[in-house]
């Protein structure tokens, strides 16, 4: 146990040097040296400041929309085949109607036809059919609902990305979580309220006509209000052009009315549609609707053929800015709710680092003093392993670009406390062996041998805890699991391998003197 071949010594020293190489760039004065790698320990949001937002898509309106579209299709098909039906109605995820039981067979055939009941993407069924006497219920399959959700998620994440990029935050991390969630991490952001405001709107822009008073009661009209003025409008449901036809939107200033406006440009299709509609409806009022809010309602004076227009709605400069960003970034398919937010200001982060490092240094010193007090020269060996351990943990964190959080720093300190455990185990065992065996070499050798299983067993159990934490935990807690886990592995190396090397050299060089432990 105490013999090390040259190759072994060489590899141990190499590992330490690799650790040092990756550790050094984390210290500020080595920061800019070309010699070192670019990799650094990532600071978690709780240490560098920033925001963590978890957004959930409210996909219910989307499913409802799909259901409505499906119902039109189903009804058309039923009429085509002369199937009698009545009491057609919707519930949350299903269509219900009453049918004539004599026609059940034909009905069943129609509803199971691939033309009407198949999921384009997966080829499976789009809805399931449940019969209850003469009542039939069509329920969207789970597969189909998940597909709707997934599509909404894919669209939304792009738009969320666009909106956040427009605000110019540095290195945002935007990823999907599960079926209907988006995780947004914004490091270094001081105040997330602007971004939260931007993410809170779906920003569906539509241009429609205000209904003529004559056809007010018809089905194609809805009543909308204006947030800024409070007045009500009856607006046609028919959409002339929508936000998808926009190619640009910029904030501007209207000298005439002395207020901020948003200028927009339409694409080719939009321009043509808008030109046609405006030509035929000169004199009518237009409603510019953003998420059910009538932003403004200008009158059409002449045909608009340039494909550009202006939205003026008594905006402040900031509001005009926001609206322009929202229009450029595009509309969300469904509303997003922030279901979890964790923000830390940059100065608190800095304070946490300072306090974390202070407690690390003090904890470290206390443990080192205690070890020297207990084991003299062997305490020094154990402290050398401990320092190496710290360097290795930081090195490994840097290599993998792992994230260091405040609980992560606590994890390192805890590792320091527990790392010496292996040393304590060994040295205590040596003391026991020395009672029976006078030869130091043999005593140390048996101690190392006997203690190995104990060290393994006890470290595996802590490692189990760390792994479970890593998979179950989130954010800061995950950071704790990472440092704890890496700490356990590097502890084994530094105490059992490096520590043993130091002890072996020492004993061999001091064969003649009495060793005090």
């Amino acid at each position: 146990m105490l013999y090390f071949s040259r190759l072994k010594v060489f590899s141990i020293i190499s590992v330490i040097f690799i650790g040092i190489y990756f550790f050094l760039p984390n210290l500020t004065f080595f920061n800019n040296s070309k010699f070192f790698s670019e990799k650094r320990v990532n600071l978690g949001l709780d240490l560098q400041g920033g925001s963590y937002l978890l957004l959930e898509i409210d996909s219910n309106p989307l499913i409802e929309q799909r259901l409505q579209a499906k119902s039109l299709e189903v009804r058309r098909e039923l009429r085509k085949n002369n199937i009698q039906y009545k009491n057609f109605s919707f519930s949350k995820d299903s269509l219900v109607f009453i049918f004539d039981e004599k026609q059940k067979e034909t009905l069943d055939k129609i509803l199971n036809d691939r033309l009407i009941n198949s999921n384009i993407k997966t080829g499976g069924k789009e809805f399931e059919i449940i019969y209850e006497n003469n009542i039939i219920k069509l329920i969207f399959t789970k597969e189909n609902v998940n597909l709707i959700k997934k599509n909404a998620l894919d669209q939304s994440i792009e738009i969320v990305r666009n909106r956040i990029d427009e605000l110019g935050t540095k290195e945002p991390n935007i990823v999907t979580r599960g079926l209907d969630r988006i995780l947004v991490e914004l490091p270094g952001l001081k105040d997330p309220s602007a971004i939260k405001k931007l993410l809170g709107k779906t920003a569906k822009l539509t241009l429609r006509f205000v209904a003529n008073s004559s056809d007010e009661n018809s089905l194609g009209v809805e009543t909308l209000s204006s947030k800024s003025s409070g007045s009500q409008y009856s607006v046609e449901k028919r959409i002339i052009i929508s936000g998808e036809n926009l190619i640009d939107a910029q904030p501007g200033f209207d000298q005439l009315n002395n207020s901020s406006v948003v200028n927009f440009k339409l694409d080719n299709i939009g321009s043509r549609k808008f030109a046609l509609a405006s030509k035929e409806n000169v004199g009518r009022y237009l409603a510019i609707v953003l998420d059910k809010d009538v932003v403004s309602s200008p009158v059409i004076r002449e045909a608009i053929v340039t494909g550009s227009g202006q939205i003026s709605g008594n905006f402040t400069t900031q509001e005009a800015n926001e609206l322009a960003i929202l229009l450029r970034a595009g509309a969300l398919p469904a509303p997003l709710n922030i279901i979890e937010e964790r923000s830390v200001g940059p100065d608190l982060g800095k304070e946490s680092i300072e306090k974390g490092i202070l407690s690390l240094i003090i904890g470290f010193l206390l443990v080192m003093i205690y070890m020297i007090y207990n084991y003299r020269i062997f305490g020094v060996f154990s402290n050398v392993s401990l320092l190496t351990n710290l360097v290795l943990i930081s090195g490994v964190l840097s290599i993998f670009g792992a994230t260091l959080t405040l609980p992560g720093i606590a994890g390192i300190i805890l590792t320091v406390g527990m790392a010496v455990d292996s040393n304590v185990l060994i040295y205590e065992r040596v003391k026991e062996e020395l009672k029976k065996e006078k030869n130091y070499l043999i005593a140390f050798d048996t101690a190392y041998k006997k203690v190995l299983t104990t060290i393994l067993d006890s470290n595996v159990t802590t490692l189990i805890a760390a792994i479970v934490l890593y998979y179950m935990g989130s954010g800061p807690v995950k950071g704790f699991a990472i440092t704890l886990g890496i700490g356990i592995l590097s502890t084994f190396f530094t105490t059992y391998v490096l520590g043993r090397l130091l002890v072996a050299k020492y004993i061999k060089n001091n064969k003649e003197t009495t060793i005090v432990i």
Partner: protein
Amino acid sequence: MNIYNKKYNFLKFKKSFLVLSTILFAISLGAFFAKGLNLGVDFKGGTVIEMKLAQPYNSEDIRKSLLKINLGDVVVKEFGSSREFLATIEKKGKNNDFVGSIKKHLESDLAREFDFRRVEVVGSKISKELTKSGLYSVVLALFLMLIYIWIRFEWQFSLGSILALIHDVVITIGAFSLVGFEFNLSIVAAILTIVGYSMNDTVVIYDRIREFLKIDDRQDIQELINDAVNSTLPRTLKTSVTTLLALVSIYVFGGEILKGFSFALIWGVLIGTYSSIFVAAPILVFFKVKRNWDEEVDTTP
């Protein structure tokens, strides 16, 4: 006191200690069910705001001001200094600018500037998920360790160590219930660490018991276990001391955010050390431990 030469008879009072542990266990369970835990927003949902002012202020005025705007239950306490406060608010706000509006209200109502240094808003759906995963993680960790110890030792050891671990977890939760410290995600992390640490301690003692069982089959089992506990005692105590030194350093210098976390760990190390010596080891006397380790006969059905 020289821990090397003296031999303590730990098992002499094994029944008294087991009774003591049972009482602590019962008190903890009682406190948990009667008083409950002071759950943080992670598990309850709601809003936490850590704020800082330029001048010292008092928490009661902040609380009164917050109560004016209908936020449900509001708790405000000093957080580290008389310029820093932590507000825990029951509501989480549907509006995406919920926190911004609270800040505006405070600044206009109390006519001073507030720096919101840390904000955590947790929706009820998330808090339920976090509770579930927190619970799962503790149970899963215990289960995995049970399996590991079973593979490495015999079932008696596995059972003994798990009982000791459950003992530690329950008494730590009981302490949180009685003291009223906030119970949040990082406390769950601390409990898992305690589980790892306590297991570590137990395994060291068990390893020694196993070693003695292999070489010595004349001894009375109680005496044998007592010898094992005694011969590992220096290590048990010294490791506890070094770990505590590190933890106390976090508790004192690590700042307010880590207070609860390090408290849980300190408490857990104390309980874990106690349980390894006074629960995990003596309990083996009651289970019939396999005495003959020379023949590798598998007697499990």
